[in-house]
């Protein structure tokens, strides 16, 4: 007797009418398609060694290399297409880690309440005020610069927003009739969480995942810029790192900078629009809230929405 989540069809009907959400979804799907079909789309395989000469380095766009070549004489278009893979992998997996941690903490805190909730939320608060990025830089600098480490570090530090969001959603779901009824007929805690709470919290988690992806992608590119990413894996951030450290601008090779930069903007913007659109559809009351701000913002905004009446009180004076 599980609660019926909004039927997928009615969801789609509403979502289709959300212009920003649709644009975001198309942008993200396009990026995913490029990543998945990279070997078919890319004219060359950037991981395959090719014979290059000195003239191939930073060669301007030409029919053979529509986006020109980079500092190692490699085809920018091919690297760009393959780069979508790594950037998306970092984004998806890092935000997956964040959301899983945040989800577990949020549901446990919201559902069990009491000391556990207090402790978990205090810990979340502490993590919330510690600035992420310097800590990410530290951790990555202290460990091996591998893709896995970057994913894990970004993931481990990005969960605070999800935890707070999920907790407040859990708190409200917990009070619903069917949950109280399930409890009354003696359902176990785990059962209630799995069958009743989780399905209702899931949409929110999905939205959060999409938003956290954009942060992870931006963080990965910033790490690459600082020279802290894995140079053997071609991501858009890594392409930019090579372009910066090996003087693309000075050589006038704007093409080595534009493609990966726009790729990042594309992906981040797509995730942001999609996340915002999903949020509007799933929670129409919020309208255009919490869109696209840093994950931390989202958390605080949600937290504050809990008691809108008091906020209004201020306006009285």
């Amino acid at each position, binding site marked *: 007797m599980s609660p019926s989540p909004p039927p997928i069809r009615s969801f789609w009907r509403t979502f289709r009418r959300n212009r*920003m959400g649709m644009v975001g979804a198309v942008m993200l799907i396009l990026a995913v398609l490029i990543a998945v079909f990279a070997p078919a789309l890319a004219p060359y395989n950037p991981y395959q060694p090719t014979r290059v000469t000195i003239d191939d380095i930073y060669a301007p766009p030409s029919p053979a290399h529509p986006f020109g070549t980079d500092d190692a004489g490699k085809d920018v278009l091919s690297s760009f297409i393959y780069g979508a893979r790594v950037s998306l992998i970092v984004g998806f997996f890092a935000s997956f880690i964040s959301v899983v941690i945040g989800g577990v903490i949020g549901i446990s805190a919201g559902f069990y309440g009491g000391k556990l909730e207090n402790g978990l939320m*205090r810990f979340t*608060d*502490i993590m*919330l*005020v*510690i*600035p*992420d*990025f*310097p*800590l990410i*830089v*530290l*951790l990555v*600098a*202290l*460990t091996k610069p591998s893709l896995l480490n970057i994913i894990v570090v970004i993931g481990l530090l990005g969960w605070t927003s999800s935890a707070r969001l999920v907790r407040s959603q859990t708190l409200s779901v917990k009070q619903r009739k069917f949950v109280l009824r399930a409890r009354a007929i003696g359902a176990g805690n785990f059962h209630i969480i799995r069958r009743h709470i989780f399905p209702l919290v899931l949409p929110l988690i999905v939205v959060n995942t999409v938003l956290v992806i*954009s942060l992870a992608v*931006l*963080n990965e*590119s*910033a790490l690459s*810029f*600082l*020279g*802290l990413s894995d140079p053997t894996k071609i991501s858009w*951030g890594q392409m*930019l790192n090579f372009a*910066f450290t090996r003087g693309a*601008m000075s050589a006038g090779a704007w093409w080595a*900078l534009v493609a990966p*930069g726009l790729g*990042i*903007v594309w992906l*981040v*913007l797509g995730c*942001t*629009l999609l996340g915002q659109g999903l949020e509007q559809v799933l929670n129409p009351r919020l*309208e*255009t*809230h*919490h*869109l*696209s*701000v*840093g994950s*931390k*913002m989202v958390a*605080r*905004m949600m937290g*504050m929405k809990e*008691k809108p009446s*008091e*906020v*209004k*009180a*201020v*306006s009285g004076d």
Partner: protein
Amino acid sequence: MKRSRYIAQKVGWALLTILFVITLNFFLFRVLPGDPARAGVRDPRLTREAVEAIRVRFGLDKPVINCFQSLNPMETGDCFINPLDTQFFIYVGNLLQGELGISYHTNRPVADMLMEMLWNTLLLIGLGQILAIVLGMSLGVLAAWKARTAVDHGALLFSLTAWSLPTFWLGIILLFIGSSYWGLPIGGRLTPGTVYNTSIERWLDIGNHLILPTLTYTIVFLGEYMLIMRSTLLDVLSEDYILTAKAKGISTFQILKDHALRNAMLPMVTIIALNLGFTVTGAIQIETVFSWPGLGGAIFTAVNRRDYPMLQGAFLLIAISVIFANLAADLFYSYLDPRVEDS
């Protein structure tokens, strides 16, 4: 909740957070791979004796904490030693005296170096924040006022795109445009070698150097404030009392000014404080691109040189600043928000 109790609680948590950060900060840096004594000095000319001298100099020869010689759990140490003679408590003790250690790279006290750079960063962040807040809020108000028109959509698209830009990427592009076409300085804080006749001239020079970094900062961060402002306002505007006001014939502008904005200020204050942690990300990138001598650039240099005391100090300073900023916002919030006194 009584205000005094609320304040005491907030201060308590801030202190606890700082304690957590200090501990985290210490242990993070002991999990180092390799020998910190050779950090940044990969030079075969460094003799074994010299390495040992450096270890002693930086106190790395002492046990990390009671029972542990190093953080390697296999390397257990003496448990019955004076705890004050372990690296951890020496570190904490030094912190209490305001000492953050000596930079591996420059051999200078980290606290001195950070102090020099803190003000430069505050100048950049402060200016950028104010501009981003003012412009972002204005744009947000405009968008909310003209909700669901072309103006709104344009502002929304601009803000979202600005937010999606990798900061360093935008910075590099602005650097080239600004220096090639507008004749703006490429980097630094002052034009070295210039003779300033008055301090106004000097400040003008600094201002000139600030234009591009501040512009980058403002573009990247204003989107966020615009979005918050717009959504908060839309929310407030959908409240019943606004309808009532409208029914009374009060103009939209009046409503915005008298009711909506006031309410919207509350979340803005919180966002601004919380955002400070986030702005550090921007500062690191912008200061590196524009060679601005601040904390962010120092972090970049320290990462490259593996200057761990410097990294440690910079992280601590930033974390504590953000914690205090949040505390300030919390206290300020309690002042704004009557529910603190009521319940």
